[in-house]
């Protein structure tokens, strides 16, 4: 018996009983739709979480800090874990990090607080000294201009953080430097900038009468660009070449805290893909550093959400289970109804396998059509949910391609399994009793 004949006979048998086929397919469609929509909500939830975490910074980034981290599980004394001690991050360590498999780029950095002055206005800035050569790979998104170049001499280049231009104010009146329409009065191309680390250059305090030190210098700086807020957390910092910052440090030791020549406060490690992050992070932790990544947080969060997803899937699965029982019932009814017919085709020389095959094909058809219709319903429901109901609720329904394909294959599989027992019964039917049946 050819496959084409089997398909056409099965299709014809389904057409003969239109209403019952329709109802069974309907059940299957509802089952498939419920499971797809539930799973799509779960996927949407994960996706939203991922986006939130991506807002915190790049998912392939690991931040390594200059204090040690001891895993509480690796020590017998539970008191020990809280004692973080300082460890050194220097050029040698940076090289070591670079050699860890899965690492794409490593960038050391230091942070320091300074004041940027432009005319009568001033703004406090968080300066991040970065390795200008590799900074480009670490997800700084520019709004205008460019990133600072590697320092060559005494000209200092800054790329401002996203909010800096809006933060300028007059230190005497505390009036913000924005015009009536809210646009900043300080702009990159028209204003000139000076940088200092000594607050006494900005605020005129009464002298407390303590020992007085010479005031810190004012430095002329070139502001070469500004970051865009798309860069997430990175957008808060003003960037400067780490060597330039170190040079400034040597001249301003009294006003800059937390810096030490040749040592870094933090090292950023960029991995080749999100899959590498956890392994690289564990490796760095085992070297005695405190390493954090957004990816780790995301994975913990998604781990927790997976349980919710399973629950959603199980709720959807109940509907599919009911539909599967429906298919089995339909096929059993069909066998009782067609007992005589089965007997006749057995006498006419239909092989046992072909009889089972016919019934399985019918089941598979129901599963396939039900799955396809259910998928259509799912897309419609998903659209309605996303556009009408949950637009603002922070939940989304996402149906990726693998889910839609998987759903159809799955519903066909479920239908085939439901059809197995009826098909077996049909196959085992005695031809003689079948013919005698009315």
């Amino acid at each position: 018996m050819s496959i084409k004949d089997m398909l056409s006979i099965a299709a014809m048998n389904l057409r003969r009983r239109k209403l019952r086929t329709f109802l069974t397919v309907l059940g299957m469609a509802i089952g498939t739709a419920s499971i797809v929509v539930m799973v799509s909500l779960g996927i949407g939830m994960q996706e939203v979480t991922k986006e939130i975490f991506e807002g915190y910074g790049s998912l392939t980034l690991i931040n390594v800090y200059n204090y040690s981290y001891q895993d509480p599980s690796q020590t017998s004394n539970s008191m020990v874990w809280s004692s973080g001690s300082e460890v050194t991050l220097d050029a040698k360590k940076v090289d070591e990090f670079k050699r860890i498999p899965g690492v794409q780029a490593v960038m050391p950095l230091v942070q320091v607080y300074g004041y940027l002055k432009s005319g009568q206005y001033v703004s406090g800035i968080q300066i991040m000294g970065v390795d200008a050569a590799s900074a480009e790979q670490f997800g700084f998104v520019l709004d205008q201009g460019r990133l600072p170049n590697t320092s060559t001499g005494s000209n200092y280049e800054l790329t401002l953080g996203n909010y800096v231009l809006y933060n300028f104010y007059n230190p005497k009146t505390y009036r913000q430097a924005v015009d009536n329409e809210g646009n900043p009065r300080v702009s990159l191309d028209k204003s000139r900038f000076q940088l200092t680390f000594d607050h006494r250059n900005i605020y005129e305090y009464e002298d407390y009468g303590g020992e007085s030190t010479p005031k810190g210098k004012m430095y002329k700086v070139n502001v070469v660009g500004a970051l865009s807020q798309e860069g997430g957390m990175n957008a808060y910092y003003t960037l400067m070449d780490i060597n330039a910052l170190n040079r400034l440090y040597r001249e301003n030791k009294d006003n800059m805290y937390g810096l030490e020549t040749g040592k870094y406060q933090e090292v950023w490690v960029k991995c080749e893909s999100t899959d590498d992050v956890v392994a690289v992070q564990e490796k760095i932790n085992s070297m005695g550093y405190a390493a954090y990544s957004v990816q780790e947080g995301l994975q913990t969060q998604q781990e927790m959400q997976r349980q919710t997803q399973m629950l959603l899937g199980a709720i959807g699965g109940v509907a599919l289970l009911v539909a599967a029982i429906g298919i089995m019932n339909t096929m059993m009814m069909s066998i009782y109804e067609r007992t005589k017919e089965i007997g006749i085709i057995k006498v006419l020389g239909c092989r046992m396998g072909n009889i089972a095959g016919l019934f399985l094909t019918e089941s598979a058809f129901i599963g396939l059509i039900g799955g396809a219709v259910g998928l259509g319903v799912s897309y419609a429901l998903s659209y309605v949910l996303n556009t009408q109901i949950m637009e603002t609720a922070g939940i989304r329904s996402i149906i990726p391609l693998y889910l839609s394909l998987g759903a159809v294959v799955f519903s066909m599989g479920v239908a085939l399994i439901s059809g197995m027992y009826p098909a077996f019964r049909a196959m085992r039917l005695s031809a003689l009793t079948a013919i005698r049946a009315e």
Partner: protein
Amino acid sequence: MEQAYEIAGAAASTTKKEIIIDIRDLKKTYRVGSVNVHALSGINFSLNRGEICCVVGRSGSGKSTLLNLMAGLEGPTSGEIVIARQHVEKMNQSELILFRQQHVGFIFQSFNLMPYYTALENVAFPLVFRGMSKRKRMKLAREMLCSVGLETHLKHKPTQMSGGQQQRVGIARALVTNPEIVFADEPTGNLDSKTSDEVMNLICDIARTQNKTLVMVTHDPNMAAFTDKAVHLLDGQVVKIDENTREI
């Protein structure tokens, strides 16, 4: 005229005396509650290739059981059934189906046509299970329907046809696979006497021209007039075997 037929028949049977059906001490016992009912108690007979035979008996004589056993629809309690040199009683379900595919055609009392198929599709149906292409099986089915005189009813559904026409479709369906043996279970049981005669003539003519062996079960002793041989059954035993019973 009659004599000439008989001589011709005798000559035919002497030239090819190949035994195609051989039944030896066939017994079938049904257990109804705690009582054993002997449907067949020791049947012996044989048929040559090309012979047309009717098994005659009253209701309950065991004739239908005999046919079912020969077609392998149920198994005997004891005894041997050798058809086309194969022991039917030793076959399993799958082998029986294969055996029926290759050697046997079946004509039913109640026609048993597929109600949702046209006459043509009904006749082509057994060929589907042999994996024949649609074009080829439709061609064969059309030829077969023409030879039973239904060339005008190819596209008719069974419900649009008379009992006689339906049984012709049944005959065409039994013969379309070109079987060596055709079993017919009361083929005229649901037909009036005039149609019965037509159908009987048709079956026997086709069987003769195509040299098929035909075994027919009937309760009507008059049917023996159409056949070469009549096996009379009573209470599960052969009471009489008439040779050369043909009158028409």
